[in-house]
């Protein structure tokens, strides 16, 4: 369940008013794309998923379209999709490289993307081509600000 829903229920139970300001979780050591994917780089290996902000806005994920192991991914290009509500939404890779592992648990439990977007809801692991690509991504503070600005505009 999203943090927004918990906050609303808690406020209602405690009979206090609150203003939702979009407190989606952001993890400090990850890097973020403006299409709301995260990447954790460890040497020449990277793990990719979608952010808490993304899963919250998408709704309950019912299906994840995963790439094949061995497929090439390119920074900024789509490599798969999530289905939520009535929509398929592209997942775009924050990093270029070769897919070495996909999270097969998502086939039976697509809801992991909602429940644990940064941990058990990871989507692919990539052998990266160029570690310098990460420099074009946002850090956690920049991404938090980006999300606030995006939500404020709409």
């Amino acid at each position, binding site marked *: 369940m999203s943090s927004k829903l918990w906050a609303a229920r808690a406020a209602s139970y405690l009979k206090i008013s609150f203003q939702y300001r979009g407190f989606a979780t952001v993890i400090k050591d990850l890097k973020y794309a403006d299409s709301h994917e995260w990447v954790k780089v460890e040497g020449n290996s990277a793990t990719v998923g979608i952010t808490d902000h993304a899963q919250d806005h998408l*709704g309950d994920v*019912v*299906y994840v379209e995963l790439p094949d192991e061995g497929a090439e991914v390119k920074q*900024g290009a789509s490599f798969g*999709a999530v289905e*939520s509500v*009535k929509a398929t939404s*592209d997942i775009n890779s924050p990093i270029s490289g070769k897919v070495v592992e996909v999270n097969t648990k998502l086939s039976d439990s697509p809801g992991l993307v909602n429940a644990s977007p940064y941990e058990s809801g990871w989507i692919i692991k990539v052998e990266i081509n160029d570690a310098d690509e990460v420099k074009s991504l946002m850090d956690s503070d920049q991404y938090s600000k980006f999300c606030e600005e995006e939500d404020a*505009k709409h």
Partner: protein
Amino acid sequence: MAVSQTRNLGLPLINLLRLKGVPILQQLHLEERLLRTSSDNWCIINDGTIDPTIVMGVSGKPQELLEIESILRDDIPVIRRFTGGGTVIVDQGTIFVTFICNKDTVPGLQSYPQPIMSWSSLLYKKVFQGIGDFRLRENDYVLGDRKFGGNAQSITKNRWVHHTSFLWDYEISNMGYLKLPKRAPEYRQARDHLEFICRMKDYISRSSFIDSTIEAVGSEFLLRSAELEDAHCTLGSKFEPSSRLLRKQELGEAIFKSLTASQS
């Protein structure tokens, strides 16, 4: 560049493509190509499709959603489309309306499923003003508590598609090809198809619906009439759409899967 120039006129430009009786697979391929390779906004209206066809969402499992034996017996085509959502059977009585837009086209609209769904319902609210008790109920368009329009979307980094199949009319017998889906909106309350849906023809004529929809679109966009040839000209030739016809062998395998599932 072109989009920002036309927005100086106050409204974003949209190409209006009016079709009649185009096969649904051809329509889906066109939509997917325009989503992925065009940078224009499009409104496509297809007034009926020629043959009864079943269209499942991207993750639909035939064994769960379809009465496969009847479908194979009667040679009904089954398509898996590129957008999410549920299963419909479409024919000449179905009117299709599709929006394909750049993510910044509609001011203040975030390109996520729910905001797009809400925006579309406000547009159609204008169409049904004074005609019936229209609303968006969960993700369906309803008159009263009966569904007459089913929606689905596909969202990319910079563009989105929102398409609707409207039940202007339907054949009761065709609904027999569809099982009661496991994933259903709460307001359905386990009603079978005939208790759950309604015919738009009981409220509005075909031409009035299409004319009013175009008028509603014209209140939010600057309309530019397009022909099918215009749409094909803008398309990148390398792109391969993913919507496809399921082979009879696949449907047969699905029967086998449902039999083994029921035995386990």
